[in-house]
């Protein structure tokens, strides 16, 4: 296991595998940061239920653009240009959950509640990681992601208070996003994930992070009076 801490000035001395994996994980992270706004800005900014919600959609997008900027900076400093993801078609996003378009307020609320939470897990993988410039940008980004999760949770609760028909619409959104959230953690036993861990770039195996996520989310869903979807149904990455 690699346990050193690396600064930008040390990067050139690193093993090619380390350089490749760091460039790859930063590119995927940048794609996920900008992938969110590409999913919801077009339809949800005009269609959010109140003017204040419209402004919060814009503020959330602003924060995600800023997260992209910070990740792009860390990548750019090691010579990795991630700007191509700014105009990447949604269908070509690295992570399946960011392909498509959010067209309903239920999906937007549940996206914040479930998918931004996976985003927090992805960022937590870099806590105490071997590349210090990446570690340094995390606190502010994670704090803002927590705000997105809370907003998504509150909006989901608000929808649930509006009766059975609305509850079914929320459940449908949960059924869709829950399995996509689980897929975001990647394949169980992934050999690449093992190399990330070897180089100190990630902390947990994919399956362990997914399991931790389910242990956190499932009791919340139960408390909200929602059904926990079958964790195997519709999954693409097992």
């Amino acid at each position, binding site marked *: 296991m690699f346990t050193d801490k690396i600064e930008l000035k040390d*990067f050139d001395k690193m093993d090619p595998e380390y350089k490749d994996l760091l460039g790859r994980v930063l590119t995927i992270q940048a794609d996920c940061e900008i992938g969110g706004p*590409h999913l919801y800005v077009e339809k949800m*900014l005009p269609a959010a239920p109140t*003017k204040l919600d419209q402004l919060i959609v814009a503020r959330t997008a602003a924060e995600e653009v800023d997260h992209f900027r910070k990740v792009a900076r860390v990548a*750019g400093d090691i*010579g990795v240009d991630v*700007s191509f993801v700014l*105009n990447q078609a949604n269908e070509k996003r690295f992570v399946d959950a960011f392909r498509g378009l959010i067209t309903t307020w239920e999906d937007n609320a549940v996206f914040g509640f479930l998918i931004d939470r996976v985003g927090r897990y992805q960022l937590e993988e870099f806590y105490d990681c071997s590349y210090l410039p990446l570690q340094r940008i995390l606190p502010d980004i994670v704090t803002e992601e927590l705000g997105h999760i809370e907003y998504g949770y509150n909006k989901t609760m608000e929808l649930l208070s509006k009766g059975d028909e609305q509850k079914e619409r929320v459940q449908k959104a949960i059924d869709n996003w829950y399995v996509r959230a689980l897929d975001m953690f990647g394949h169980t036993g992934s050999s690449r994930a093992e190399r990330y861990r070897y180089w100190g770039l990630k902390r947990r195996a994919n399956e362990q992070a997914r399991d931790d996520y389910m242990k956190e989310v499932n009791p919340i869903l139960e408390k909200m009076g929602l059904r926990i979807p079958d964790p195997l149904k519709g999954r693409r990455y097992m």
Partner: protein
Amino acid sequence: MPQPAHNIEKLDEHLLQVVRALHGAVKQGASHSNEPKVMDNAIQDCKEILDEIMTGNVSEWLN
């Protein structure tokens, strides 16, 4: 030291300005919650800024 990506300084600066403009518009709207017209203008400003970001025309932004 590694060779940085050629556009990183300009891109960073541009996006920082975009983010500041968006936060400014949101703040303007949110602090006038009893003035629908001010809020509408702020939302429209956000929409215009975000539309440009969503097109992702990086070379146009940086030249």
